[in-house]
């Protein structure tokens, strides 16, 4: 019985997620802003800065691409979809189905995440074509992608808490998008060998840039401040902000539009 219930729960999440994906593709505005724009920018940067075989050049491209996918591709889209579904009463309606609250949130944000991952795969292909310097250590890069996705998904749910209408989401998502993109690019090249700069990992999203830098230089486990491996502050930064956004989301998330 447990297995059957579990399987059908997954089936319900997949059913709603595939419908949400269909809706994203049907909506031209969302398709352009969350698919074509990040994709176009990422490819533009790959060709503009490509061919640089120095690790710093590769780091900037990777950080820009990761930043734009996490920020514009996933964070903004997930926030807009969540707020729009709440505003139209769809979240409340879906709660009257057999879908769990957690499953409902997962299904609603999953298309944005899959879209972002698809964009990253395309960027990796362009990186190979333009012969941009490749990462020497995959571990921090995987941490940047996985941790970055967790961070922006929790941030999207938390931002939805503070966003009263779909129109307002275009404004409420701006600060974190810029901080994330700027922080990731800056920390991808600011040398981590200078101890105080390691603290920049505490800026939301900046840890992504630090992890990109570590993936390019291979200094993942090199000792930093107080002998702590350089990868640790970046991981702490990602986990910390994910927990902060996650707690805000759990405590304050509203399923119904404000009346």
């Amino acid at each position: 019985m447990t297995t059957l219930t579990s399987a059908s729960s997954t089936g319900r999440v997949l059913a709603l997620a595939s419908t949400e994906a269909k809706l994203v593709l049907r909506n031209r505005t969302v398709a352009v802003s969350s698919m074509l724009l990040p994709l176009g920018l990422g490819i533009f940067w790959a060709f503009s800065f490509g061919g640089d075989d120095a690790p710093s050049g590769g780091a900037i491209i990777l950080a820009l691409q990761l930043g734009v996918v996490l920020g514009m591709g996933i964070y903004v889209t997930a926030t807009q979809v969540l707020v729009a579904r709440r505003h139209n009463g769809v979240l409340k309606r879906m709660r009257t189905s057999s879908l769990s609250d957690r499953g409902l949130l997962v299904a609603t944000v999953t298309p944005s995440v899959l879209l972002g991952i698809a964009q990253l795969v395309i960027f990796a292909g362009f990186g190979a074509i333009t012969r941009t310097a490749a990462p020497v250590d995959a571990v921090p890069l995987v941490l940047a992608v996985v941790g970055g996705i967790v961070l922006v998904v929790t941030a999207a749910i938390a931002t939805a808490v503070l966003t009263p209408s779909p129109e307002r989401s275009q404004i409420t998502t701006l600060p974190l998008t810029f901080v994330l993109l700027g922080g990731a690019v800056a920390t991808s090249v600011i040398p981590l060998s200078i101890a105080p700069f390691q603290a920049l990992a505490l800026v939301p999203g900046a840890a992504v840039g630090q992890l990109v830098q570590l993936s390019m230089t291979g200094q993942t486990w090199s000792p930093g401040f107080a002998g702590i491996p350089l990868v640790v502050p970046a991981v702490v930064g990602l986990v910390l902000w994910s927990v902060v956004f996650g707690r805000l989301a759990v405590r304050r998330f509203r399923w119904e539009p404000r009346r």
Partner: protein
Amino acid sequence: MTQTTTDRPPGAPGTDTSLAIEVRGLQVRYGGFTAVAGIDLDVRRGEVFALLGTNGAGKTTTLEVLEGFGTRTGGTVSVLGLDPATERSALQPRMGVQLQEGGFVDELTVLETLQLWQKLVERPDRPERLLERFELGGKRGTPVGKLSGGEKRRLDLAMAVWGSPELVVLDEPTTGLDPESRRRTWDAIHELQEAGRTVVLTTHYLEEAEALADRVAIMHAGRVAVRGTLSEIVAAQPSGFSATLPAGVADLPWLGGTVEREGDAVRVRTTDLQGDLTAFLGWAAARGVQLSDLRAAPASLADIYHAIRTEEQR
């Protein structure tokens, strides 16, 4: 279907199996505002129960607590033997809900909406059956955003009754509907009743409660002002008769009820309709007074509703 059995002490809410819903001392407060102020409700299995009241009376808040979406600040609630606050996941497969407002994805077609619902709800049913039942077959390919208000409410009702749940909760199911659409909705509710389902609905329309409900509760300022079967409620209220006197008749007989006179028109509200009417007619016959427009009727739900509203304004 997932069901949870909870051990409850004898006499506690949820132990009476003849009741679909048992509410004791329900309170809901938002900050300093009290939306529901300690109400008791019993809804029997298989009955249609109507919750009436003015705007802000606490009807929707009460329904949201029953559905497991609202947070109560006091009291106990049992719905189909489960506490909706802690056992919503077990309750959901057994309860259909029609929301006060849509909650549709406008870009999905009617058929896509029902096909999605088919995958999200544990109760088995077929989109085609409901398209036919609610006369939406011709709209299957229409995006929900392009449906009329009445068509949306029909789709809403179709989703609420999907798989014929044990309990159907309808929040103002006919608000904004034209008379024909309203009649169709009433037919659907009658069908649920005949199938032995329990229906709880809120409405502003008195005739709707009169046409559909086995029992009603009228809420006012977060409390239940009146409750019972319609005949019980009506019997407890003063009945009335009225007549128009010929010009120049000044005095009237002594009557037990309340007499209102406006010119030659007389209106009497009384708990002893037979006694007062007999006395009035006897007086008219003895005096040779020719009455016109003589009418007698029990209190209507409208009278009771308006009496509560009048009390509110005092």
